[in-house]
């Protein structure tokens, strides 16, 4: 029996696959070790929704048989992973992180789980999340059936939401990769706060069949992993046409690092103010150094003007309209009151009052936003760079929404000068753009990250930038203390 050292828990997909194929380690040994670790340490970060140890070992036994017979199915064969608990896994609870759905069981798998299963990846558990992926808007990190997501770098800090468990589990070495979802920031935010590489794919590239719907026109599924390379390998496995998802773009994704364009040919747009005045002071040095890495690799950094739209208002209106329709039965039944976060309960109720004309106006402005990105932004640059979040993770008890009646922030307190790429998370989600999150340093001993966004279906370009960045830095290899 092979020794499972701590390095195994922080190995990349390629490293583990090489050891499996060389028979230095078996898939069963790997599955057992990861499943036990997830069950032991997952609760420490409120990251575990459901352990699947027995299922993982059974699946791993099949993988070992395949490897023994020389049936190799690619780099994910035998690799342990977890999924956000908004994905259905047949016969097991799928809670959507919310008490009203605590006993919910589906009889089919989400498409992404079937795809990973077909390639021999081994699911070891379901990972915690903000209830209903944050639908309605939540005030506190405690808005979850499993309690506040605790950051592996400092458990007094939030792991981010709504894919809290996916990010924390990868950061703490509890899984090799994880699947999360984003409607507006739910991949970018926890990846940034936990110091994990993650990819929000283009809208429609990855099937959402079997995933909880929060917003049909905004929801996306994507990977959290140890590196840009691992995100590429995982995306290739989960992307593709699916007739069960009406939003499917009908496109496949082939990870092709061999065809990467040289960094010297790339123009990357950015707004200096995002990395200075609009960044939190402790994070500025890390952000400046990250820009230097891109410049040093030969990329042309181009200051860019951002199309001016009310991104936040457009996104929140579309989200309100769609979540109201999706969760109307929950609200009408009164079970919405079982949610943990009072602001979220109110937000869902209020969304029933949204006017049709406001939803339609938002969708019309969204059309203009998509055009502006296509005609104005990606004609000037190949990609955009901005901080993942402006600073490190907040304390877990810090309000994320103002209290009712609280005074609006003073205009004097707001950053002065140009807006930079403020609203890039909302804008990117409205336009369906992919974004890659790259850990880029620390502020107050907590991770901070860069995000690289690109035109629709430019994932290979973003991954090539990410690979280059990570060949010059080791932030993505850092481990939280005590794990």
């Amino acid at each position, binding site marked *: 029996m092979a020794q499972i050292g701590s390095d195994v828990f922080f190995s990349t997909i390629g490293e583990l696959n090489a050891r499996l194929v060389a028979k230095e380690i078996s898939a069963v040994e790997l599955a057992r070790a990861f499943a036990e670790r997830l069950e032991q340490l997952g609760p420490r970060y409120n990251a575990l929704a459901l352990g699947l140890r027995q299922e993982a070992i059974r699946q791993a036994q099949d993988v070992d048989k395949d490897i023994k017979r020389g049936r190799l199915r690619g780099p994910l064969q035998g690799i342990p992973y977890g999924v956000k608990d908004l994905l259905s896994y047949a016969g097991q609870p799928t809670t959507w992180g919310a008490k009203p759905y605590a006993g919910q069981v589906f009889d089919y798998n989400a498409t992404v789980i079937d795809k990973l299963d077909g390639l021999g990846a081994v699911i070891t558990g379901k990972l915690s999340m903000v209830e209903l992926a944050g639908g309605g808007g939540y005030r506190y990190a405690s808005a979850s059936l499993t309690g506040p997501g605790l950051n592996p770098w400092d458990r007094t800090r939030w792991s981010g939401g709504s894919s809290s468990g996916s990010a924390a589990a990868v950061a703490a070495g509890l899984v090799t990769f994880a699947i999360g979802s984003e409607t507006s920031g739910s991949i970018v935010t926890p990846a940034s706060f936990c110091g994990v590489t993650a990819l929000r794919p283009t809208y429609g590239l990855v099937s959402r069949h079997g995933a909880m719907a929060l917003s049909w026109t905004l929801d996306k599924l994507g990977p959290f992993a140890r590196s840009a390379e691992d995100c590429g390998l995982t995306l290739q496995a989960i992307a593709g046409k699916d007739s069960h998802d009406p939003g499917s773009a009908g496109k496949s994704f082939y990870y092709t690092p061999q065809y990467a364009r040289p960094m010297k040919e790339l123009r990357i747009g950015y707004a200096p103010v995002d990395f200075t005045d609009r960044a939190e002071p402790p994070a500025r040095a890390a952000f400046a150094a990250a820009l230097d890495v891109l410049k040093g690799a030969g990329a042309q950094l181009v200051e860019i003007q951002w199309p001016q739209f009310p991104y936040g208002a457009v996104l929140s209106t579309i989200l309100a309209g769609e979540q109201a329709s999706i969760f109307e039965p929950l609200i009408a039944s009164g079970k919405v009151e079982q949610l943990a976060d009072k602001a979220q309960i109110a937000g869902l109720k209020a969304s029933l009052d949204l006017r049709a004309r*406001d939803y339609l*106006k938002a969708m019309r402005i969204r*059309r*203009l936003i998509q055009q502006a990105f296509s005609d104005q932004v990606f004609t000037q640059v190949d990609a955009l760079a901005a901080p993942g979040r402006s600073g490190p993770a907040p304390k877990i008890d810090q309000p994320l929404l103002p*209290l009712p*009646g609280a005074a609006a922030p003073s205009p004097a307190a707001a950053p002065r000068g140009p807006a930079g790429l403020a609203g890039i998370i909302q804008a990117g989600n409205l336009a369906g753009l992919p974004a890659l999150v790259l850990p880029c340093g620390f502020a107050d001993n907590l991770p901070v990250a860069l995000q690289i966004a690109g035109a629709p279906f430019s994932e290979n370009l973003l991954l090539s930038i990410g690979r280059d960045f990570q060949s010059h830095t080791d932030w993505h290899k850092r481990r939280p203390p005590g794990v």
Partner: protein
Amino acid sequence: MKLTRRQVAPAILSPAIVIAQTAAPSPDAELTAARERLKSSADALSAAAVPMDTEPAFQFKA
């Protein structure tokens, strides 16, 4: 005089309970605030000019 834990508990916990109750907004206040957030978004949308021939992104494709 000997006090049991049950007798001591209210004395220890009551200030915390009072603080929590006064700090927690009522459901009505929460609902009003949520509606105000929606209205604020609607106001921002109203201020944005959209050409008449702009159709909504109904069939959304990236």
